[in-house]
């Protein structure tokens, strides 16, 4: 990585709060994500992890009920004032919690839906082939309706669908939730491959050991705030556990 890339983070979050109506789900978040990072976010249920990722991609900005305050900058450009469509066009995307595939569509239609933006259409076939290269199983199943597939296969479709927008930053919410350990291993190998192609990754992971193994940076959220952040080598498991549960326990 060049020093320049180090100097300007890919994504800079400052003073970010997000609200569901009156409820403030995250508050005053400051976080820099550098190009090439794999950042793992861990935290208890309800800590605000999903809300943080949804805020980045504009999904907390869509209705009167939910809204955000603060700044999100991607390559120096404000994202917090943009619609989700424009944020995805800029190169940031989310693999949502629970996968949220289009259940009645086939694998291929789900993937192609990810290349809807006019800029992406001319190269959609090429990227589809790349994704089939990454997940050969999906090529065999391309005509299958996704609601008939296993959780692991569905997660592959969700990841592939996000990759169809050729993002430079991809946010994974609960990558391994509800999947068998062997499947999780496989998914994480794929994430490493994706990262090796130059995509910066943020991963919400419930399993602390896995988070520490895959990430070059970890942050712990508690009750809507980031309470601990650092490289895995700098952090002890005790420190993380303390942060995860709150210091008084």
């Amino acid at each position, binding site marked *: 990585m060049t020093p320049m890339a180090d100097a300007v983070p890919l994504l800079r979050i400052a003073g970010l709060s997000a609200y569901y*109506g009156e409820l403030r789900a995250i508050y005053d978040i400051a976080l820099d994500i550098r190009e090439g990072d794999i950042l793992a976010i861990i935290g208890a249920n309800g800590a605000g992890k999903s809300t943080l990722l949804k805020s980045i*991609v*504009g*999904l907390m900005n*869509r*209705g*009167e*009920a939910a809204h955000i305050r603060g700044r999100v900058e991607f390559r120096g450009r404000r994202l917090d004032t943009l*619609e*989700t*469509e424009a944020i*995805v*066009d800029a190169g940031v*995307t*989310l693999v*949502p919690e629970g996968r*949220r595939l*289009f*259940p*009645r*569509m086939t694998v291929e*239609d789900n993937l*192609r*839906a*990810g290349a*809807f*933006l006019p800029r*992406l*259409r001319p190269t959609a076939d090429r990227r589809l082939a790349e994704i089939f290269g990454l997940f050969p199983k999906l090529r065999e199943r391309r005509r299958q309706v996704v609601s008939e597939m296993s959780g692991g296969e569905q997660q592959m479709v969700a990841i592939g*669908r*996000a990759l169809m*927008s050729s993002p430079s930053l991809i946010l994974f919410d609960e990558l391994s939730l509800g999947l068998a350990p062997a499947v999780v291993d496989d998914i994480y190998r794929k994430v490493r491959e994706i990262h090796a192609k130059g995509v910066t990754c943020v991963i919400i992971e419930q399993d602390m050991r896995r988070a520490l193994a895959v990430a070059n940076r970890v942050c712990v959220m508690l009750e809507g705030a980031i309470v601990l952040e650092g490289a895995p080598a700098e952090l002890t498991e005790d420190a993380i556990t303390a942060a995860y549960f709150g210091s008084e326990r």
Partner: protein
Amino acid sequence: MNEDLYWMFIDVANGLLSGSMLGGYYAVIAIGLALNFGVMRLVNLAHGDWLILAAYLAVAFLSMANVSPFWTLLLVVPVMYVIGYVIQRVMLNRVSVQAAERRGMSASFGLMSPLLVTFGMSIVIGQGLLAVFDSNAMAIRNELSFDAIRLGEDLTVSTLRLIFFGIALLMLALVQFFLHGTHMGRAIRAASDDPEIAALMGMNANKVYAVASGISLATAGVAGVMIGMSRSFQPFDGPTFLLIAFGVVILGGLGSMVGALVGGLILGIVQVLAGTYFGPSAQLVAGYILILFVLAVRPQGLFSR
């Protein structure tokens, strides 16, 4: 061959044949309603009135240009598309189920406001047509009205109905291809499943819904011209056709164009057979009895899973 048996066979064959032809026409009447509901969960109570408006548009066009009624489609269909697009963008998107959900209201509450709005729209369209065209019955004159094609000794089919049936198959195939084979069609299906995730795919759900409504009214344009060519119509005839469209959708189930065709065929065939055996007044009644029966036994529609 036994004479009675022969005539029984001919009756049934004629019933099936002209019932099918009628069914294709019914399917076209219903496509727009099915698309609106399948995609946006919008129950468009003004659907029938849009059909009648399209028929009047064709009449107005023909009063300016003396051409075959089929040419009116070139004007009526694009005009109806634009009307559908604009109405959805400036009005229906604001009161839609999806808008209600974004505001944190329940979907069942959200279903209410579009019902009221489209009901109001229905009244406005009817009154508007009355003001512009007065209440005299109109029809789109055409030379095919009384033509028939002989398929056998005692088996005939109306030329106009046959053409309509062909148009119906073509339209259903086009809409089906559009929904499944194009970027916009995929977007329409995606936005109907999950608007939030559609946004993550770079789709602007409101624009996508507007396109869907545009297409829905464009099909209503074709249906309106067909209605005008097959019978006379008046400003407040909309609800009659809304009822037919509901019947088709209830019988065939939602979402697929195949469902619209199947629903149309069932309704058409049952009506014609009932008319054959129990007289003309039984025709309408049989249709409604069938619909009520299906609603009682399989409220989700005959063919939906």
